[in-house]
């Protein structure tokens, strides 16, 4: 069953050290050098059905050589502030290793100096919320060195809403109702059987 307490403590202490191997990267230290745009149908988007087309590239107003460290680009779907209210599991932290703003990966590809476009079908496990798109530039150690996003710094413009799948199926609904009815009917059946047995046992 549960491992002995001492062993558990030891494992947990070791596990807790695994996070501290990397230097802390803060979001505020990153430069916004990428230009990101996202295009999609202008209505409530449906998870599993609709597509988002994301385009990103280096902002040409930055001096040449800014992108020398960029190895990969990771584009992510991120929660807008309105969808973070009263939900600590989506909280924005400056420390990127603790940051929970961007939880869905759209695409991760090697960095190219020319503009890149990617089309992404919204996955079926994306919850109902308001989102924006952010791209991180990663170096050879997979650490963030720069970013870009399709909204402004306050995350108020170009937001879009996605409607999740319900996860429900007609077969599930029917199964639930059938099993529930069965429980109730079985209970009534037992009661009738008890009454009849009780009547017979009377001498």
């Amino acid at each position, binding site marked *: *069953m549960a491992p002995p307490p001492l062993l558990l*403590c030891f494992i*947990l202490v070791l596990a807790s050290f695994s996070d501290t191997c990397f230097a802390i990267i803060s979001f505020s230290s990153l430069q916004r050098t990428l230009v990101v745009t996202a295009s999609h149908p202008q209505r409530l988007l449906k998870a599993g059905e609709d597509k988002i087309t994301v385009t990103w590239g280096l902002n040409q107003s930055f001096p040449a050589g800014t992108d020398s460290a960029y190895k990969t680009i990771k584009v992510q779907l991120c929660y807008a502030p309105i969808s973070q209210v*009263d939900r600590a599991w989506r909280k924005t932290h400056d420390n990127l290793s603790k940051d929970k703003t961007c939880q869905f990966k759209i695409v991760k590809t090697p960095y190219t100096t020319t503009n890149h476009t990617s089309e992404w079908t919204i996955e079926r496990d994306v919850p109902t919320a308001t989102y924006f798109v952010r791209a991180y530039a990663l170096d050879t150690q997979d650490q963030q060195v720069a970013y870009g996003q399709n909204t402004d710094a306050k995350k108020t413009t170009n937001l879009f809403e996605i409607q999740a799948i319900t996860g429900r199926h007609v077969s599930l609904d029917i199964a*639930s109702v059938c099993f529930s009815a069965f429980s109730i009917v*079985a209970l009534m059946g037992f009661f009738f059987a008890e009454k009849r047995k009780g009547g017979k046992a009377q001498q």
Partner: protein
Amino acid sequence: MEISSNGAETQPKFALPVDSEHKATEFRLFSAAAPHMRAFHLSWVSFFACFVSTFAAPPLLPIIRDNLNLTATDIGNAGIASVSGAVFARLAMGTACDLFGPRLASASLILLTAPVVFFTSIASSPVSFLLVRFFTGFSLATFVSTQFWMSSMFSAPVVGTANGVAGGWGNLGGGATQLIMPLVFGLIRDIGAVKFTAWRIAFFIPALFQTLSAFAVLMFGQDLPDGNYKRLQKSGDKQKDKFSRVFYHGITNYRGWILALTYGYCFGVELTIDNIIAEYFYDRFNLKLHTAGIIAASFGLANIISRPGGGILSDVMGKRFGMRGRLWTLWTVQTLGGVFCIILGQVDSLSASVAVMIIFSIFVQAACGLTFGVVPFVSRRSLGVISGMTGGGGNVGAVVTQLIFFKGSKYSKETGITLMGVMIICCSLPLLLIYFPQWGGMFCGPSSAKTATEEDYYMSEWSSDEKDKGLHEASLKFADNSRRERGRSVHSQTLPSNATPPANA
């Protein structure tokens, strides 16, 4: 001390040694002999199933909260709702046990709440989520029927043990579910279902388990060693009692109220921790959700030994020191639980927190077991109502504690835990006030008045009319069997020479 029944009636053969009420005087864990040990296994398994269902949602919350678009407030409210339903359900269950017997009462409740667990699969909003958690929580009232059933099947020397093991192994469900549900969910998702469908299918497992356990109780269980209530009532061996009288004698017994309060601060604390501890470790020490879940599970899993340990300890102390020993041990263990709770909120490191939490869980759960070593003696006629009050008080403690310390952002979780520890210590003090005329209390010995015997205490629940009709016979037998609660040294000296003759009529 077994008092042999007179040989005039045909003596049914029991697999275990029994007393004059045919309650078992030994507890054999690895036997499934009818009726005693079979009742034990049926009751703990069905109670375990109810705990699994009630706490099936918390480990899957990371998925459910995204599917149903829940906020932290919604989750907190649903958590409070899950334990508040049982407050009155436990009291109602106690009364139902007194009137209809634990077998029918518990199986009915389980089969009536199983549909709600099935309907969890089709929940689609925060409101429906709260409602299913609220109604599923009603099934925790099976705790009362478990304790009542054990108190009806097992005699004074082992009633604490039986109650403790049945209660503890049932509570285990709250810990086991934190491991079972993610496993089942993972399996279903790997087979090919998408996340938001997989968790819905996963809920069929606790629901089916619950339904099947209720069938087992109905088919293989019986209320009393001699048979079921209905048959015994028809043959005249058991008198059908009046609800109003049973209820009255239960709620007018001040000891029931004190135990309700103190149980709120061992079991209520346990329920509160079940709801908040995973998040506490996750947030404070930045653990992965999976790791936090394992720690949360280990709190509930300690129940496998800690609550039974409390019950066994109660019986050991009862054998040596009588009821006074049971009361002193209960107060000491529960107060120490409060002390460790205060320490838990203060420690800063992960390993110390886990260690303190495990020690804290052992004390708090042992206190639960110790409480139900005292409850069977508070009343014989209204055993169900007293059990229901105590059990309901446990849930009230959980609701009140979560409302005061763990809702919103008034207190940080660690401050809340420390303050909860202080409240445990304060709310355990009323135990000092419990007094039995025939056995004494924590600070006073038994009364030397001539009317202070076990018979007087239990007969005070019956009016002279009812005694004329012979309705009090079972209580008389119980009073005789409970004489050992005077403790070893006193018991061997004071075998009353003019005691009412045992089980004669």
